[in-house]
């Protein structure tokens, strides 16, 4: 039977090394073509008229002026008179015109009358949420939480949470749709789901799935928000049909991108946590709420990570319905919220116990379950990297280096995620001239998917990387699932490995007779096919492939592959520690140092893996310090659907970062595990804890903007602060 398992350390020529991404030159030179960059002959520009009101009924729609405008090719009402709108930004009329200014003029010429209805958009204060905006609460109980609360020797109580944030992909959502003939549709979407989008579009249009071609080379950010083909994309395809098949480009404007194209739900919780006086956590009690739009929001997994072992637990959760566009998956759905609330409450508990949180977390680490030892090692490693024991001081005293007005603080957090490989098929072809192709209907979100495929194929075949051509981004290639939940690297590396092993074994069968040996005695290494243990008996790769005559070898590798070695796994830990300075006169928080220690099984490309962690931490700084979608209660609209007031961190805001990837024995043999989500989870908690440590008081909700920091300082509410 073929041996698929990953090569051991010492036998790897590419896997685990720092390798530059193979599409780097295209990206740095501006030549990489993203969906937004594609211009097609006779292309029309699509635009959408969206509802300015959060809750309204349409009284009338007059599109006559727009229809008469020169250059306007399609005007399409998407809602009828009487239709009820449930959030600001709902699509009402679509237009397609010969150029963008004309399409914009056409939108401005459309007149819609609305009957405004009452809306609700701000869920931060649970007591002010009307009854009809609350979904039925869910409750969970373990042990005897009420009794344990009464018996707890030390107890803290607090409110913690985060605001809604938006994905703010730099390439907005959208696509270009064109009918190549009466029946066949070509679509260039900006997507995380190349292999799924064709079927989805076909269902919406009522045409066979084999009539829809999806192509995408590069995507400008997704982060969980770009799975669906989207209603505006479907309308672009319909308008293209109306316009005789001409391509219609429909990309969202920035304000629409931030309003309707995805958000992470808010999460707020009133928490009580109890412990023995020597610091053993005994009870968790939380009443939580949050909103991700019309469907409310599910309960994040409170108490995070420690839910495994805290003996007594009670959770109650309210999903709150708001007149806002629906949430979308956001890297590690629900985890950053659960982590923030849990790690903040536990840090407050450590402070009340007069314990160093590092000691407190390690003392309770068995409560995290099977990865307790990994967490412990990672906590100690991170503490060493940030010089925790040298710098940390009890809450409110200010860490080493504090001044009268600028207080320094340290905070920590830990996290988990699954990250097992998704379903993926790979066709790997070895040509008689020795060149190799790998084909997968996958997509590279900037995580390095192309590079990983090339590394795995080249490693398996003992070839230089550039011998392998990688084809992705086309739904006519073998199915590979959507990129979400850190599932891609495990999926595509497993299917590519199996395809390459099988193709290589077929090649061995062809060349073994000529080498007077049997296929099982052959190996491929260093650009040669050779007898195992006897490199002098060898052929060059080209000589070996020439034995194929005119017929290439193609092998299909599948993930999952029951009965074969498991090449991917799920379940990681990860620890982050933040070092901040807070100016207590201005409330401004500044990052000094930010440390991550992260495990993820076997790493294929160390360089792009580290980039994932750096990127996640920087996004986390944005989440912790800057980002919030601000809803206007009066108008029901997003007040900051732009990049001036929807704040992201810049290069100057991040401080110094260090990332340590945990590799080697105990990790590599687990197989490949995804990395997109786990390091995004902890930053909010680690930074909030660092700020609490610095200023001696918990800032209840993030982002930790100057106004929130100053308000917390003024209240001096400590763990008992109310929002």
């Amino acid at each position, binding site marked *: 039977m073929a041996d698929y398992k990953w090569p051991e350390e010492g036998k790897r020529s590419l896997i685990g090394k720092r390798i530059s991404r193979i599409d780097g030159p295209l990206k740095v*030179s501006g030549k990489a073509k993203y969906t937004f960059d594609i211009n097609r002959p006779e292309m029309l520009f699509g635009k959408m008229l969206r509802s300015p009101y959060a809750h309204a009924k349409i009284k009338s729609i007059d599109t006559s002026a727009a229809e008469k405008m020169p250059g306007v090719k399609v005007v399409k009402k998407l809602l009828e008179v009487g239709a009820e709108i449930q959030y600001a930004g709902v699509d009402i009329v679509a237009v397609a015109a010969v150029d963008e200014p004309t399409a914009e003029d056409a939108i401005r010429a459309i007149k819609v009358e609305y009957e405004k209805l009452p809306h609700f958009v701000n869920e931060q204060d649970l007591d002010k949420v009307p009854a009809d905006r609350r979904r039925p609460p869910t409750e969970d109980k373990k042990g005897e939480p009420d009794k344990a609360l009464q018996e707890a020797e030390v107890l803290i109580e607090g409110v913690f949470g985060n605001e809604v944030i938006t994905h703010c992909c*730099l390439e907005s959502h959208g696509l270009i749709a064109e009918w190549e003939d009466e029946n066949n549709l070509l679509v260039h979407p900006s997507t995380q789901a190349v292999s799924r989008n064709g079927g989805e579009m076909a269902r919406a249009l009522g045409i066979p799935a084999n009539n829809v071609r999806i192509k995408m080379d590069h995507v400008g950010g997704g982060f969980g928000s770009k799975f669906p083909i989207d209603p505006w994309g479907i309308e672009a395809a319909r308008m293209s049909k109306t316009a005789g098949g001409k391509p219609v480009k429909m990309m969202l404007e920035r304000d629409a991108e931030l309003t309707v194209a995805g958000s992470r739900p808010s999460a707020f919780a009133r928490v009580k946590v109890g412990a023995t006086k020597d610091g053993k956590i005994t009870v968790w009690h939380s009443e939580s709420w949050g909103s991700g739009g019309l469907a409310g929001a599910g309960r994040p997994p409170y108490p995070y990570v420690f839910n495994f072992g805290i003996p007594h637990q009670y959770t109650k959760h309210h999903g709150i319905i708001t007149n806002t566009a629906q949430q979308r998956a956001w890297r590690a759905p629900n985890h950053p919220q659960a982590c923030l609330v849990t790690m903040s409450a536990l840090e407050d508990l450590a402070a009340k116990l007069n314990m160093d949180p590092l000691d407190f977390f390690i003392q309770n680490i068995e409560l995290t379950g099977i990865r307790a030892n990994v967490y412990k090692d990672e906590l100690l490693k991170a503490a060493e990297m940030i010089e925790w024991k040298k710098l940390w001081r009890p809450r409110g005293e200010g860490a080493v280096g504090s001044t009268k007005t600028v207080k320094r603080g340290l905070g920590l957090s830990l996290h988990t995620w699954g990250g097992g490989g998704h379903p993926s098929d790979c066709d790997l072809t070895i040509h008689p001239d020795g060149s190799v192709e790998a084909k997968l209907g996958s997509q590279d979100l900037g995580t390095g998917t192309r590079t990983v495929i090339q590394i795995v194929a080249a490693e398996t075949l003992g070839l230089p990387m550039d011998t392998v051509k990688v084809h992705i981004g086309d739904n006519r290639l073998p199915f590979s699932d959507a990129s979400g939940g850190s599932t891609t690297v495990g999926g595509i590396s497993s299917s590519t490995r199996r395809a390459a092993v099988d193709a290589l074994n077929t090649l061995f069968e062809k060349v073994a007779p000529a080498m007077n040996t049997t296929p099982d005695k052959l190996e491929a290494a260093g650009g040669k096919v050779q007898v195992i243990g006897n490199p002098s008996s060898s052929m060059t790769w080209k000589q070996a492939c020439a034995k194929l005559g005119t017929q290439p070898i193609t092998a299909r590798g599948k993930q999952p592959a029951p009965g074969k070695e498991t090449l991917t796994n799920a379940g990681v830990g990860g620890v982050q520690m933040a070092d901040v300075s807070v100016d207590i006169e201005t409330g401004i928080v500044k990052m000094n140092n930010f440390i991550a220690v992260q495990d993820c099984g076997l790493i294929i490309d160390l360089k792009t893996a580290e*980039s994932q962690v750096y990127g996640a931490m920087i996004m986390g700084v944005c989440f912790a310090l800057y980002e919030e979608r601000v809803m206007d209660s009066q108008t029901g609209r997003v007040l900051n659907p732009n*990049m001036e007031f929807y704040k992201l961190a810049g*290069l100057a805001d991040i401080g110094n970062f260090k990332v340590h990837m945990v590799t080697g024995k105990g990790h590599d043999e687990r197989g490949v595990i995804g990395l997109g989500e786990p390091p995004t989870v902890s930053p909010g908690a680690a930074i909030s804890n660092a700020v609490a440590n610095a200023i001696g008081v918990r800032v209840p909700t993030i982002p930790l903007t100057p106004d929130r920091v100053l308000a917390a300082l003024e209240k001096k509410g400590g763990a008992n602060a109310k929002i």
Partner: protein
Amino acid sequence: MSSSDERSDKPDNSGVSRRNFLKGTSVALTIPLVAKSERVVKAAGADVPILGPGKVNITLNLNGAPKPASVEPRVTLLDALRNDLDITGAKRVCDRATCGACTVIVDSKAVYACTMLAIEAQGKKIQTAEGLEQNGKLHPVQQAFWDNDAQQCGFCTPGFVMACKALLDKHPTPTPEQIELGTGGNLCRCGTYVGIKAAIAQASQQMRKTRPARLTRGGKSNG
């Protein structure tokens, strides 16, 4: 038709003081006359053509070559590059001078292409990320971005590359403060700033090696 390349570096030789007076203070008034302009009005004592609202023919000096286009006067340089000339390295993200994804270099300065009209950009030397390679080789800034993985999705990358090039052209050995200012107009969503910092350090070293000595004398920047 005049050659926009020749016009870019020289003030008008008409002797009219308007141009010298306004030189460097306004981009709007450096618009060269457009052929077939139908109307002219007097403004500040000079003849100023009225353009539009229909399309006008323009020529942009783009990456060293003249590129004709036909655009409405309200079209930005960014949209003219992307929609009319199919030069798409500069990206449209915020479209209002916040994020820097559209950064191009205009007459040696990093400029947001979303806030300059295409008609204003005539007569200026416009450089985009596509124009940095020489003899098929990446520019040191581009090479450094690749080597240091200063990119993930890559949508902000061409803008950052141009901002960093403009920074290093002006400050061959930038201080941390100059780096923060020089990149302060650009945002990345994937979080590639750690790589960008490393890329700037590498490119600075590389560019000083290949630069004529007089430009790096004493290793000091010109402020």
